[in-house]
């Protein structure tokens, strides 16, 4: 069995056997109701794209944080980290495969939100620039994988998974501009927000859904790629460092 298939089967088994991992699948459609009702009640049809994309991006990040982020740490407290390191396969590659699987599974949420919009509010999502939207979506998912790897390594290195999982969610959503574009946040938040790949992704995805032509596509897409690659690079570096530390100092015990 190829390593990716084995890792994917494991990760899918893990996601759907642990009820906690399905929280975002339950919460996202409910949040979609909140945002769509808000926009309708405020009579702001121009914010429909915001209302549709926000719950999807929030859930994508939520799953990255709560599932992908604890892949390595969960294996550690299950006593599986060292047996896995002791196998011939490169550990970082295995972790990446599992993160990619989680990210792909989280696309279910996009389907859920669309269903809520259509069945609950009679609104059929329209994407005026579908190819642009597809490209940005793929790059966003790739960037999410990169940052998930960074979180995974960080959580196991610092043993602070629970703290970070609680802390990072809403600050990231705010700075990521998932509903309110970053350039409409208070001034001091904007430069910080621009370091979060989600802020570029969410702007591009909203623009791709809107009718007017999308401007500065290359530059903005490039930022998603750059920030995603930075997350991936830092994540790989940190994970390798964690592995070296495991072997050098024995800080992650057999028991």
């Amino acid at each position, binding site marked *: *069995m*190829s*390593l990716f*298939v*084995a*890792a994917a*089967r*494991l990760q899918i*088994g*893990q996601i759907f*056997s*642990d009820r906690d991992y399905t929280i975002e699948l339950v919460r996202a459609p409910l949040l979609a109701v909140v945002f769509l009702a808000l926009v309708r009640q405020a009579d702001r049809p121009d914010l429909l794209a915001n209302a549709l994309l926000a719950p999807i991006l929030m859930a994508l990040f939520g799953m990255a944080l709560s599932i992908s982020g604890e892949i390595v740490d969960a294996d550690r407290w*299950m*006593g*599986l980290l*060292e*047996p*896995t*390191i*002791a*196998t*011939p*396969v490169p550990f970082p590659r*295995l972790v990446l495969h599992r993160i990619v699987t989680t990210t792909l599974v989280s696309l279910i949420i996009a389907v859920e939100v669309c269903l809520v919009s259509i069945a609950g509010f009679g609104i059929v999502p329209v994407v005026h620039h579908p190819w642009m939207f597809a490209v940005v979506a793929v790059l966003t998912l790739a960037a999410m994988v990169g940052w998930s790897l960074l979180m995974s390594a960080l959580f196991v290195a610092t043993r602070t998974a629970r703290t970070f999982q609680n802390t990072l969610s809403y600050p990231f959503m705010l700075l990521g501009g998932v509903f309110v574009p970053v350039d409409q946040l208070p001034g001091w938040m904007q430069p910080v927000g621009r370091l979060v790949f989600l802020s570029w992704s969410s702007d591009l995805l909203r623009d791709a859904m809107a009718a007017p032509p999308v401007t500065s596509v290359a530059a903005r897409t490039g930022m998603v790629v750059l920030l995603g690659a930075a997350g991936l690079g830092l994540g790989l570096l940190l994970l390798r460092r964690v592995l070296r530390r*495991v*072997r*050098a*100092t*024995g800080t992650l015990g*057999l*028991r």
Partner: protein
Amino acid sequence: MTAVEAIALTRIYHQKGRPDVTALAGLDLTVAEGEVHGLLGPNGAGKSTFMRILATVLLPTSGSARVLGHDVVADHTQVRRQLAVVFGGDRGLYPRLSARHNLRYWAALYRLDGRTAARRADELLTEMGLADRADDRVETYSTGMRQRLHLARGLIADPRVLLLDEPTNGLDPVAAHQLRGIIRGLADSGRTVLLATHDMAEAEAVCDRVTMINHGRVIATEAPRQLARWITTCERVDADGAGEEVLARIKELPGVGEVTSDGDGSVSIAVDSRETAGLVLQRLLDSGVTSVRTAMPSLEEVYLHLLREEAR
């Protein structure tokens, strides 16, 4: 061929704000291929640290270790292909997945192709008596079943060297006996097994040779029966119903060592020669004690004796 070789293996743990801990202090050990080799020692003796170094998940501070000729540091990739490590207890399996799913996953990590992985998983599940529960979640398994599944996981890639870290820990006597039978069968198939255990009976029953370690060093390496001879060249004398008066007279005999009473009337008398054993037996029979026997010290007695000697 030598399956496992450690030369002056040392491992020091550095801890911030606390003194360094020396887990291995120049350990020398050789295990021949096809041997079942026991590692005995109290908690903190260095057994787990040694296993981790061999499994390539921990680097030594100094010295060297080789598995089937490959250095565990420089050639760790080669080592990982030929060695598997199995832990006791409840850790080391994905509890919410089935046994079959766990095995298929680990087979992929050991780079087995799909068909081989499926065949090996089926074979091992049958061998371990888990075939009819193969598709149940591991979290529904008893401790004995989990331990057999751990073993199956370790064997999935048919490794030439198997490290077992207290595999019967927490098992009831029946389950432990069953597992020991399986372990003995592994060696019969030509595999090398290194077994860390507290269980003296297990070490005596299963191991070809036993190494006693403490404070990160080897105290003794011998076949279990040979180790007993370390304490005494002859037997000890056990008797039931010997009174205090006859024991006092026996203690005066030259060549009589420790006399231990169980409190239920049984007594154990260590002797240094066959002649002394004869004298002791005579005294016992003269005093009317007829329930007497001679025996070699058990591995537990050897173990405790060696630890006491080492502490002195």
